[in-house]
Each structure stands twice: as C-alpha cells, then as structure tokens.
C-alpha cells in the first residue's frame, strides 16, 4: 500500500513539475536535476581536447544497485556460457496468444506478424489468435507483434541451452531486471497506433477562452451589464452610484475613446475646421450623457408602474 502511495506522490510531483515547467520555463527542472545527479556528472566544455565517450552501458552501471542483480536464471555474464555450449543445437517453439479486445481476429491478423529480434524469426497468427514461432535457437529475444493498426507491448523471451523458456518485461536500460510474465505469452493489444497529430484548428471557443481575449471581454461585460443590474435596485443606491460616477467623471475634458476613433476615421475636412471638431467633441460628451438621461427617463416611469401595481395590490 505504501509503495502505491509513494508512486502516486511521485506522479503528483511530476505533474506539479510539469505545470511549473509549463509556466516558468526550465528553471525548476534544472534545480531538481542538480539535487539528484550532481555527484557523478562532469560538465564537459566543448573546448576540451580529449575524446568524450558516454555509453548507455556505463550509465546502466549507475542504475543497477549490486543487490538488484539477484537473477540466477540469466545474468548477462552468465547466459552466454550456457547459450554457446557447442555441439548442442536446441531449437524450440515460442508460442502464445494475441488478443485485440473487441475486434474479430480475422479482421486484423492478415497483416500482422510475430517478429523475434527484428525479422530473424517470423511467425504468423492463427485464426484463434494463437501463434507459434518455430525453430528458435537458445538465446534471448524480444518478441513483438507488428501490426499497422494495433499496438502491442513487446516481451523478452529467454531460452536456455536446455530449451527452458520464460518471458519477462522488456527493459533496455536495466537489462538484468526480471519481471516475469506468463508463458505461453499473452499479448494483449494496448490500443491503436496514433500516427497523426491533429491540425491546429481555429475554433471560436478556443479563441474566446484565450486569456488575452478574456481580459478584454470581461471588463467590457462589466461595463455593459453592471449599470443594468444596478438599475433594478432601489433609488438610493442609484443616487449613490450616480454620485460616485460623477466623482469619477469629474474631469470631463478626458477624451472619449470612441470619439478618438471616429475622428481618426472621419474625412480630413472635419480636421480642417478645428472649432467644429471641438464642438463635436463637447456635443459627443453631451450626447453620451443625454443617452444616460434617457435611460434614466425610461426607468423611473417603469418603476412608477410597478409602484402603482403595488398600490393596487395593497
């Protein structure tokens, strides 16, 4: 149970890191990296004259703790002695079953093959999903099912000189680690191959959810909707609002945005008459307020209606 919790915590950290990385760039990853692998890594400047060599095999040594290599069946050093025993020619049959859930076998087996170590040994899948690869000499092989549509996890199959067989999880980094799998092999499809990446399509929702657009649209909504919401409230509140608005709008000379835009797009002749332009500007400001008063004019009337209704009910 504890290990599971641990792994979940790990995943959480990873997720967090992912998020951090996405937000802030590489900084955090670098820090993490420093903590973990600082002891054995030398920084190599390109100017150094000697030949650098880093093989994954050497890395491997770091990952393998000596206690881990408990496998007697086949540690990498040992097996070749067994495998290469001369005069003995063991040829065995590797068999198993392949399954694609929800798909009839005859729909996918005609272009699927069983491959051992590339195509050194090839097998075909029977109509019941079973397969066998015959005449396989002793050794260690990676068995995979190659299908252009369905994906299968490869399996490592070890065959000793005596013809004993076992299956284990493929791990190219910790090659000596043994996680046993059942034999005869059970190959289960783990999904379809995804060969394509989706196009970046332009969708309205994407556009609207863009933070920049949200930043623009939300204030706009507030500006448009808030007065209407306020309108329905009581007249005292309204008066207060008006006062505060008046205080905010104390400097009436501040040019209106719409005004500037209109002036910008209007034909140059209006620019010629500077006085007219100025008047228009003032008038525009008036107009806005006039509009507001109109609203005010409409609203009380409506409210009075409500009032009358209330009186009738009383």
């Amino acid at each position, binding site marked *: 149970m504890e290990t599971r919790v641990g792994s979940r915590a790990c995943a959480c*950290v990873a997720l967090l890191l992912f998020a951090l990385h996405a937000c802030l760039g590489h900084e955090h990853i670098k820090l*993490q990296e420093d903590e973990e692998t600082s002891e054995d890594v030398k920084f190599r400047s390109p100017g150094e004259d000697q030949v650098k060599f880093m*093989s*994954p095999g050497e890395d491997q040594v770091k990952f393998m703790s000596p206690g881990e290599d408990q496998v007697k069946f086949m540690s*990498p050093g040992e097996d070749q002695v067994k495998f290469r025993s001369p005069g003995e020619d063991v040829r065995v049959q590797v068999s198993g079953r392949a399954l694609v859930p929800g798909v009839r076998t005859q729909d996918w087996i005609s*272009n699927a093959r069983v491959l051992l170590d590339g195509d050194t040994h090839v097998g075909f*899948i029977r109509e019941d999903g079973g397969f066998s690869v*015959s005449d396989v000499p002793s050794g260690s092989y990676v068995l995979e099912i190659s299908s252009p549509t369905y994906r299968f996890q490869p399996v490592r199959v070890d065959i000793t000189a005596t013809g004993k067989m076992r299956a284990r999880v493929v791990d190219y980094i910790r090659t000596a680690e043994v996680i046993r799998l059942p034999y005869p092999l059970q190959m289960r499809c783990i999904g379809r191959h995804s*060969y394509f990446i989706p196009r970046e399509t332009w969708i309205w929702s994407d556009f609207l959810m863009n933070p920049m657009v949200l930043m623009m649209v939300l204030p706009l909504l507030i500006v448009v909707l808030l007065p209407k919401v306020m309108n329905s409230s009581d007249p005292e509140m309204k008066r207060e609002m008006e006062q505060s608005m008046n205080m905010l709008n104390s400097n009436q000379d501040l040019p209106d945005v719409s005004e500037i*835009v209109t002036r910008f797009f209007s034909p140059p002749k209006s620019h010629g008459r500077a006085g007219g332009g100025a008047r228009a500007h003032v008038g525009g400001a008036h107009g806005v307020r006039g509009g507001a008063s109109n609203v005010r004019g409409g609203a009380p009337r409506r409210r009075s209606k409500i009032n009358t209704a209330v009186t009738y009910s009383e």
Partner: protein
Amino acid sequence: MAWLVVRLAISLSLLYTASAVFEDQVGKFDWREQFVGKVRFALFDTHSQASKKLLVATDKNVFASLNSRTGDLFWRHVDKTGPEGHIDALLMYGQDAVVVVGNGRLLRSWETTVGGLKWEAVLDTGSFQAAALIGVQDFVKYVAVLKKSAISLHDLSSGSQIWVENLPDSDTVQYQTIYSGGNGLVFVLGFVPSSHIVIVEYKIEDGEIMKKKSVEAAWMSSLENSCAVISSGNLLCVDQITQSLYTLPLQSAEPTEMRTIHLQTLDLEVASGFQPVLTSTQPNPAQPPLAEFFLQLSPDHHILLQLKDDLIAPLRDFNPSYLAAFATSGEKTFAAVMTPKNDTACTINLFSADTGRRHLDTTIIYHMDPNGGKPNRLYVHAFLKKDDSVGYRVMVQTEDLTLTFLQQPGRVVWMREEALADVVTMEMVDLPLTGTQAELEGEFGKKADGLLPMVLKRLSSQFILLQAWMAHLWKLFYDARKPRSSVKNEVTIDTLSRDEFNLQKMMVMVTASGKLFGIDSKSGTVLWKQYLEDIQPNSIFKLIVQRTTAHFPHPPQCTLLIKNQDTGLGSLYVFNPIFGKKSHISVPALPRPVLQTLLLPVIDQDYAKVLLLIDDQYKVTAFPSTKNVLQQLQDTASSIFFYLVDSSQGKLSGFRLRMDLSTELIWEVVIPTEVQKIVAVKGKRANEHVHSQGRVMGDRSVLYKYLNPNLLAVITESTDIHQERSFVGIFLIDGVTGRIVHEAVQRKARGPVHFVHSENWLVYVYWNSKFRRNEFSVLELFEGAELYNSTVFSSLDRPHPPQVLQQSYIFPAPISTLEATLTEKGITSRHLLVGLPSGNILSLPKMFLDPRRPEMISEQSREENLIPYAPEMPIRTEWFINYNQTVSRVRGIYTAPSGLESTCLVVVYGLDIYQTRVFPSKQFDVLKDDYDYVLISSVLFGLFFATMISKRLAEVKLLNRAWR
C-alpha cells in the same frame, strides 16, 4: 526523480520538434506500391466463377492473394528471408491453401478469403522432395509430404500427423515423386541413377508398406521433369538419349519391364541437347489423372498426346509453340497453348484436352513488350459461361518478371512489374523544362546579336508564354465543365515537366533482374522500362548521373556500370534517364576488372561529368575521353586522389592520378585481418551542402565544424564473434593523405553496423551483445573555437587534429536501414530516417543524436537548445513518416533535395516502394496546407466593411450634431 525530470524535459522538447503527418495529408504526396517478387507458384481459385482470388507464392518467400480483376493485393504474408522461409510447394483445396515452407520444415494451412492461418505443423528435418494432396473416395482428406528419407501424412483439417514412415533404402534410392489416384494407396517413386526405378506402395490408413518393387531403367537420370503419372496409374517417362517413351502400370502385380515406345514411331524427335519435359494434369486429387499430356520436344515445340488402350497417339502438334498449360473448369479440362504470331505478338488459343480440337473464338493476342523479356510461364484460368461455352483468362510471366493478365480478345486487364520487388540502386533526376520554358532558357544561352533582334526575340518568347498561358486557362475551363472523375491527369512521358518547386522528379530504379525503370515520383507511374538481357544474376550495379537536365539542349545522361561479381569484369550502359533510351555514345571497352569508379566535377564540352574507372592494374579509363577531357585531366591530375579497399587483405590504399592516366600509390593503411575485417567504407555524399560553418555556443562563441570533404568512415568488425570479445571498430581516415583522423572501438558489440556519414558527424548503430540491445553512437568532429584556414579546406595542410565528441544511446528497436535527410542548401535541420523491420520509417531528429547533450542542464545548454541526456532514445508513432503504409523488408532509403529548402524527397525501397516528402523543420518556406484562407479573408473583409459602416455612421452622427 531526476530520471522523471529528464524524461519530462524530453517529452516537452518533443512537443516542439515533432514533425508528423497530418491525417488530411494521407496520400497527398506519398504513395506505396506493393510487390510480391518472382512468382513460383500461382493458383486460381476455380471453385466459383465469381471468385477473384489468385494465390501466388514467390521466390521472395511471400505468399499472397491477388485480385484477379485489378491485380491488387488482397493480403500478403511475408516470411523471413533465406532458405528457412523458402516456399517449397503450394497446394489448394476448397477455400484453404497448404504451403510447405523452409525445405519441408513447416506445413501451414491458410484460409484464403481473409488470409488467416488455420494451422501450422512442424515436420521432421530432412530435405524436401514433393508434396501432394491425397484423396479417399472422392474427398480430399490428407496431405502427404515426401522427404529424402521419410514420408508423412497429415490431416488437412487440423494438420495433425497421421503417420510417418521411413523410406526403404533411402541412402541409395532417390525418392522424388508421390502419386495417389484416390484408391486408398500412396505411391512413392524413386530411382537409382542409371539402374532402376523403385515404387513403394503405402496404405493410407496406417502407412503400412503394401508392396515394394523395382523395375529396370538403365537410362534413368531424373524423375522430376521427364516422368509423369497419367491415366489411372501409368508411369510415363521420356528419355532424350534413347529417343523413347517408357510406360509402366504402377499397380501391375508382377514387376515387369517398362514398355518402350520409340519416338520415331510417332514421327517425333527430341531436339539435341534439350531435356524433354512431360506435363500431365490431375484435376482432382481424389481421382486419377487424365490420359492426355504434353510433351515438350524443344524450347518451342509442344505436342499433346493421349494414352489410350496402352497406345500413345498424338492429338495435336503445336509447332512452333512457346508455352502450354492445362486448365480445368468443372468436369472439363482444357489446354492453352501460346504460339508466336509475329516478332512482337503471340496468340494464345484454347483447345479441348480430350480431343485436341480448338475452341472457336478463344484467341487471345499477347503483345510482347519490345523493351521486355520473353514469356516463360503461362497460368490459365478457364471457366464455363452461362451458355455453356468456355471462357478463359491467362496470366503470362516473362523473363523480366512482368505479370500480365489478359482477357479475351487480348485486353490487358492488369500488369505487375515484379522486378521492382528487388530494387538494387536508384537515383532521382530532375525533370526537363517544357518546350516553352526551354525556349526562354535558350534565349539567354545564345550570343547577343544586336539590340533589335534581341528585342524581337524577347517579344516572341513572351508571346509564346502568353499563348501557353491562354491554352492553360482554356484547359482549366474545359476541365471544369467535365465531371470530376473523367478529369484524370494522366502522366505520360510527353506531359512531363518540372514543377515550380522541383518536387516532381524522375526515379531511375535498377533492379536485380537487370530491368531498369523510370518512375514518376509524384504518382508512382512507370513511365519507361528497359530490360537488359544477358545480365548475370549476381551482378553489381552502380548508377551514375553524368549530366543532369540543367544543360539544355544536351539530353541528360545516366551511366550504369554492371559488374560481374565473380570475374569483376564490367560493362557500361549509357541511357537518357527521362526517356529510358539508350544513348549512342561510344562506350570504352573494359577488358580488366573494375575496382573503383570516380565521378569528377570536371566536365567536358558537352557538360557531362567525367567518370574515371580504375582497373586492377591501377590504370585509369576516362569516360567520356575526348581531347578536351584528357587535357583537363592532365591539368588537374596532381589533385585527383582516390582510394581502394581490399577487405580480404584488410588494406586501404590511396592513389594519385598521374599525367598519363597511370597512378601512384600514396598511402596504405593495413587493418590486420586476423583481428578484424573491413565491413564498410563510406565517404560523404557529393551533393550535400553544409550551410553553417560552426555552432554558436551558449556564451556566443563559435565552435567550428571540422568539414573535411575527403573524410572516409571505415567500419570494421572483429573476427572473434564471442560475446565478450567481439567489437566494432570505427576509423575516420583522410582519403587524400591516409591519415587516421580518429579511431574508436566499441567493445562487446557486433554488427550489422548501419551508419550515416555526413557534414561533421558520423552516426552508427551496432548491437550491444552484452546488454542485447541496439545502440546508436554519434561522433562529431570540431575544429575548435577558430578555423585554421577559413577559405579553403586542404587535407595536406591540417596541423591540428579535430576535437571529437561522442555519445551513445539505447535504441529500443531493431533496425534494418539508416539514412539522413538532405535538403538543397542544408539550412533545414537534419533528421535520420530509420527503417524498422516492422516496416515503419522513423524520422528521428538529429537533435537527439548530439554529443553535446548535457547530463545537467545549465544556462548555456538551454541557450543552445540542447536536450538533456537520456540514455534511451524515444520512438513515437507520430514520427513514422509512412503511418500505416508499412514497407516490407526495407533495403534502402534514398533521399534527394527538392527545390524547396524545407522539403526532402524520400524513397524507401525493399519488397515495396514508398515515396514521400519530409519536412524536418516543418514547412517554413511555403504556406501550410491548412492555411485558413477563409478566416484571413473573412477578417479582412469584415474589417473593411466595419470601417465603411462606421465611417458612414460617424458622418451621420456629425451631420445630426451639426443640425442640433
């Protein structure tokens, strides 16, 4: 934890580097052709007339089902290469097909409609001789397999072995044939050369030997082709020396002598030196064969004979005739015979087998390809029509592996070029300009002759252009009115012309059978083909483009060097790669074995590059060898160097050309053969460009690349194959001076080594025998922070050895081939194309194979966009450039630059051919496919109208205000 972080960082960086195929690009610029190889067995599904199945088994160890109406594949099963996957026999019963594989090792039964395996049985070892279906009481129940020393009987429905019996005296008797007439007995026929025939009779139920007898036959040399069983168990043999036919009833009680019938009595004679062939037919394995048979007396003489009441009577003589075959439909059996009509055509006629009478209106005319080979196999599918008359279709296979499927009265239904299943080498050649374009080009080529003529010429060419444009518009208009399906842009050799971005090219492919193909890279259409006769089967080919299409009006020119592997003698075949026509240029005779070829950048007065051929006496032959060329060679001889590799002696030697076209030895490197052997030597590709001289480091300094154009990569493998002691050696040798620039040894490693040598790097893949995995290793060479001589590279003046960086990675899959992308100017980042045995082509960014990938991320490495080191190389299915269009048995990948810097053309060949384009840095120089024209134009128009309307509104507003 660090592990996770590194992985995370990688997966993030992948998000930006990934270049995958979009789903809507499928089939847009890529195509795949699937092949099967040379057909060894072909069977038609004759059980229903509507059946379209044609089962083939080929020499490429492929078992496939073809659609006989279209020639497409229904399904195909590719077994492993080599003798272990070799298909020995193909038998068919009902819906199932039985295949004997691997010298009689495996017996497989396939369901033929979907191509699923029904059962598979492993047989005992032993060399395969024959297989036959065995019927009992009109039902086919068993299959018998005859080996050199044993016979076994298997159940057809389950594959289980009924019995296996050893053959008597199998060390002296050669058993070759099985026969069963459906009467509960299996006959095994064997013989002792020049002595006697042995007939063993087995009971089907338990394999008990019922009878064994031997009959004198002193003339006997082979059973297989010269003997056949006909008409209720009569063995019939033919012998060329005694010019006689021999018959023997198999079930006769007493071992009698074979009855001799002299061919003279039938007025027949076997051509001298020709081994006569007997062909019989057994339409139903549960019934005895027919009494009629073909006897081939010479390569073009067949005769249909009949055995009746112990007498052999000729039914019909076909002289001359190339091929003859039997076909059965229902109860009737027919014979189809191909006879020559004239030099270019043959006629195929259908005859009734029991009378030899010709069926009326059954003539099919087969036109032979003048550039192809002779027909050598005939497969017939006969069927009865509704009105009880007979109809038939034939498949003709020729020497150049073309399969032609014909229908009455000679319509070619489909054709397959199976030679393309074995492409050896290829080149891509630019297409020529169209006539009008060439006209314009010609204008610049000519010498100026006065102002007015120049103006007139310009005007006339502009007029031609205008005309061409009008014609194009008219065609567009005309096509637009026609329905979509009928407008099919047929690519023909006349309409070929270069497109805007030079994306369409001519693929010149050389196949192992000696057939050359010119294929349009855009559609995969075969535009021309040329069969070169009398090519040895194991020849080595080298294709050289001597002159491209850039030198109008000189035609492009390709030269094919054909070298016999045994004798080393070579010959040259010069042709035009666009039209496939042989050039009439005189070709130098090559009396000595050719060791090396060298294509020089020197051109003759006709703009053809000069090809040097070095023979085993180190004499050099130049082609073309005009005076002009020889003069140029004399001038530049001191700077022409070449190298020779002798892998049997482990010797690499460098030579320099002398003025008189002899050579002098300059250097020699000997790699002792008792320790390691040279596997491969590769220089860099001549047409590759390197755009940047160095790499900008994180601290803004520049690390200059070591760009030695003369560098050779030599790969060796240890002769000791023991797991602990085997190694792979890598030598980087300067081809001019012989100096070993770098040497590396990969311990506990073995081949096969795949490698790419390009720019300043070498990437190689080997098998790590300790950890049993494939590993990639990359070597990069740098000059350092400053260039020694920035203007020109000279191998002779390089005092400082380069700095070499190396890193290795685990590659979690086997590899079948490796190649790198190539673009016009080398600005685009490089990708490695990795062919996987599963048939996918992985496009791996070179970024992952960078020896400067840090183990620890630093400020500087981030600046340089270096991915942190991770031992395991990622494989993502999104990087498979051929998505689900897998290419079986990838043999080579050919990359060619296109006119667009972002685009690299890729051709993958093996059993199949796949052509596509890759964009390693995405399409930065053209608008994307999904460029949203609608959005852009709607936004533009929207803005335009919005300004118009707002302008109007503003005016109204102004006016209103003025009135107030």
